[in-house]
Structure formats: C-alpha cells, structure tokens
C-alpha cells in the first residue's frame, strides 16, 4: 500500500484510540456483556443462546455507533479545524487522504471488535464452562459484523465529504436502519406496481443490504452458515464500500476548502 495512505491511516487510528469516547464505548460493551451473563444466569437452559445473542448484538451496535460517531467527522472536522491545510499542501493526493482515513477508521473498528469479541468469548466460557466446535461460528458472525462496519465507514466518509457532522450522522444512521430492513424493502418492491415498483426496487438495491449480514440469531441456534453466503457478503461489502469511497473521493477532489 502507498506509504502516505499508511501514515494517514495510522494517524487516524491513533487519534481514535486516544479519544476518550472510544474507551467509554468499550466500557459500555463490557458492561453489556456483563448484563448478558446476568440474564444468562436467570434464564433456564438458554444461557448460551442469550449470551451469544446479546454479546454479538452489543458488538455490532457499539461498532456501528463508533463508526458513525467518528466517521462523520473524519473529513468535515478536518476542514472545519483546518488541520487539512497542512496535509494537502504536502505531496498528498486528495484520494490518498480519503482512503487513508477509511483504513484508519476500519482498522480502529477491527481492533475494537477484537477486544469486544474476547469479552463475548469470555462471557460464553463463563456460562458454559467450555467451548464446543459450533462456537467457532461466532467468528463468522463477527466477520460479517466487520464487513458491515466497512460499509458504514465508507458511507460516513461519503457524507462527511460534503455535509456537516450532524447531517452526516442522520444520513448514515438512516441508511443503517433502512439497510437493516433491505430484504423487506425488496419484498415490497416485488409486490408494488408501476412507478412505485421501479422506485422501490431502485431504493432497495441502492441502500446497503445489512439484513444479509445478520446471522447472529441462526448462529446462536448453532445453525451453520453457507460458504456461498460468506463469499457473497464479502464481495458485496467490498464492492459497496469501494463505490461509496469512490463517491467520497469524487466529491472531495472537486471541493474548495474555504
């Protein structure tokens, strides 16, 4: 990878790690895992199910919040504070800046997810006192969660490249919510007629299909995940993130930094 992208990414990672809000969110995630254990103890024979469900949902939600919270300010904050001036007056291309920021945030989320995953596995061991082969499926769910983060990061960056942090947050969060119901939207498009059908179909394929990434419930019930789904989700997430990043680059390349 281009050295300047690596330097920008590592600076973004360092900034996020030194941000106290990030630590607070990790603490919240740990607290939620603690709550999972408590719920597990008062449930009968379904402790493991509850721990996996609650733990992975917490990992996903906290990660999404971090991705949106940090992602929306990645470009707009730099413009507002004018920290960008001393970066772009160097031999740094604008696309390198955007891509570096993306990898910095994505890297932060991967590291963050790694620590939260340790919390989930610790909670699981606490309630079941052992690991079984099916527990490895949790890694697939975590992988899908990380793919979701890549999409959210790229969208937050896209919005951040032309909008204020507040509006970017609204856009990114709305897309996350709509994307979580993308399958329902596609179902609705199938039932609609005329212009509505075209519009609904267009919207259904434009919003990120997060529902395809949600395998938490089936994994909690120890149902296997098809390798085709893993491949499809990987290609889809990388393609979607690349498209959103390209949009961010396109906008940012032509933006006057007043």
């Amino acid at each position: 990878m281009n050295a300047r992208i690596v330097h920008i990414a590592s600076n973004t990672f360092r900034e996020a790690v030194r941000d106290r809000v990030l630590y607070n969110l990790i603490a919240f995630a740990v607290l939620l895992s603690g709550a999972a254990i408590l719920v597990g103890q008062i449930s009968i024979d379904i402790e493991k199910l509850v721990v996996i469900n609650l733990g992975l949902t917490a990992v996903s939600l906290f990660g999404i919040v971090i991705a949106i919270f940090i992602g929306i300010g990645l470009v707009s904050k730099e413009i507002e504070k004018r920290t960008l001036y001393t970066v772009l007056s160097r031999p740094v291309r604008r696309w390198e800046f955007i891509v570096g920021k993306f990898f910095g945030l994505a890297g932060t989320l991967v590291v963050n997810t790694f620590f939260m995953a340790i919390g989930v596995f610790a909670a699981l061991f606490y309630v079941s006192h052992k690991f079984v082969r099916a527990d490895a499926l949790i890694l697939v769910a975590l992988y899908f969660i990380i793919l979701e983060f890549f999409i959210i990061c790229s969208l937050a960056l896209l919005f951040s490249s032309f909008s204020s942090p507040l509006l970017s947050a609204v856009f990114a969060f709305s897309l996350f919510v709509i994307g979580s119901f993308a399958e329902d939207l596609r179902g609705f498009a199938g039932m609609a007629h005329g212009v509505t059908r075209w519009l609904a179909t267009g919207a259904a394929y434009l919003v990120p299909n997060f529902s395809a990434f949600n395998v938490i419930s089936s994994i909690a019930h120890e149902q296997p995940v098809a390798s085709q789904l893993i491949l499809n989700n990987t290609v889809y997430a990388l393609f979607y993130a690349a498209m959103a990043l390209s949009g961010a680059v396109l906008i940012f390349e032509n933006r006057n930094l007043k």
Partner: protein
Amino acid sequence: MAAIEILGLEKTYSVGFWIKRPKRALHPLHLKVEDGEIFGFLGPNGAGKTTTLKLLMGLVFPTAGSARLLGKEWTDPEVKAQIGFLPEQPYFYDHLTAHELLNYYAQLSGVPAKERSRRVAATLERVGLRNVQGVQLRKFSKGMLQRVGIAQAILHEPKLVFFDEPMSGLDPMGRREVRDLIEQLKHEGKTVFFSTHILSDAEALCDRVAIIHQGEVRTIGAVADLTSSVQGKIEVIWQGTRVPASMKALGSECHVTGDTVRAILDESQQDAAIDALRRERLKLIALTPVRTSLESYFVEKLQRAETSAASTV
C-alpha cells in the same frame, strides 16, 4: 528561474442560499517572485491574501489562470515536496505531541526514515520547542502553536516557503525570532513568500512587496523604491538642547529630545543648515534624507484606491 510565477489566477465564489450571486475574491493576478527573494504580500484583512495562498496550495480551485512554482505546474505533487506552508492561525491534531506531529508531517513529505528523527529534533530546536516536544498540542498556547506551524513548514527543508501571517499570536521576542528565522532562510538560499498586514515586518524583511486590496494588486515593487517615493526633506540631528536662531530662520520644525535636537528641513537648505550648526559650534550627529515609511505608502495607496472606487459609484 522564477520561484513563483502566477499567470492570471483568479477566483470568484458563488454566494447566497437560493439565488447565487458571483463574488470576486481575487481579480486576475500576475506576479513573479525570483529565486532567493523574500517577498511580502501586503493588504488589509479580506484583501485576498489568504485566497491567493490557498489557490497556490491547491486548497481551492481557481476560476481561471494558472501558476508555476519552482518551474513546474503548481498542482504537480513533486513540487509540493519542495514547498513549505504555514496557514493563518494554524490548528493541528491536538492529540499528538509536537514531536509526533512533526514526525507525521515528515512522513507525509517523504523525508527518509533514517533522517526523520534528526530532522524533527533539529527543527524543534530551531523554533525553541525542544523542551516541550513530548507535550500534547492541546496544552500549547497560541504562540507555541504558531512556532509548531513554522516548524512544520520548514521541517522538510523546502526550497520555497509560504507563510500566512507568520507573526500572528507571537510576543515581541517570538516575532524577533521569526524575523531572524526568515532571514536565515534567505541566507540558506530559500525563497520566502509571506502575507502580512504588519508593515514594519515587511519593511524590515522584504526585498519586494505587493500591495493587494479588494482582490486586486495595486502595487508591486522593491521596498526601497516604494519608501523613497516621497522625497525633498532631510532630517538633521545635533547634540545639545539649544536651537539657534539661524536654524529657526531656515523654517525648520525643531524637537528637543533628551540631549539631542531633531529638525526637518527642505533638501535645498542642507548646506545652510550645516553652516549654521558649524557657526554655533554645535555637534552634528546625523543628516539623513526623510523617506516615507511603508505604512504611509500603504495607507496612501489604499485611500487612493477607495477614493477612486467611490468616485466611480
């Protein structure tokens, strides 16, 4: 070779929410700065100084025109490796320490890894921040941030340095140090282009200046030429507190300060004044032509521009 060659750069913004109106921030600008010069870009607030610098740094895009820096297209990334830039009222990543920040900028500027550490340490020493290099920038005062800004601009040993209001936020000692640093940069063979509205700094440092007002360059010239434009007077200083009648007779205005007297006379009376002081056995200390200050020239130029603008309305 010209270090900077601006070929008709201009910038017009669209303002207004619903109905967009054009607002010209910079009229077509033509300017040439020679290699090794210290060039001052002077003008009141909102004159177009920062817009010009942002255009040259590629932070905003021109409506028309182009520029060449160090003989190459100004958008060429290779050129940027040889340029240093201090923005006005700089703000930096405050989660980093001064050392970390400079190291980051050195990485982005392509300073080789084995040289980076030495270069960062030397630059911190040069701007007087060596003893606070491990402190996070969020704890820095405005003046210290300005020093960091200057450090990041010269860290990678650029051939051409742009400073936007470099003295801003500095105390008198700090201003003196920055003046010395700019002079050192010139001695090192670098070209310095700096914008300021503090005219004494420009007068003390610059080889040439341009005066910009309302987005338009009004004058470009050597400081010596601009400040000698109002002539015909001499300043005579002698020792003592006595003003002889013969000096008064020459029609001079005399001011006694401490144990010296200062008189302003027409240039034509220079010999008569020397004779008068000799006759009275008074010790002549200095006799110099009166030059207008850059400030007087600047004010006069702007007033003239405003008067002509008002008369055309």
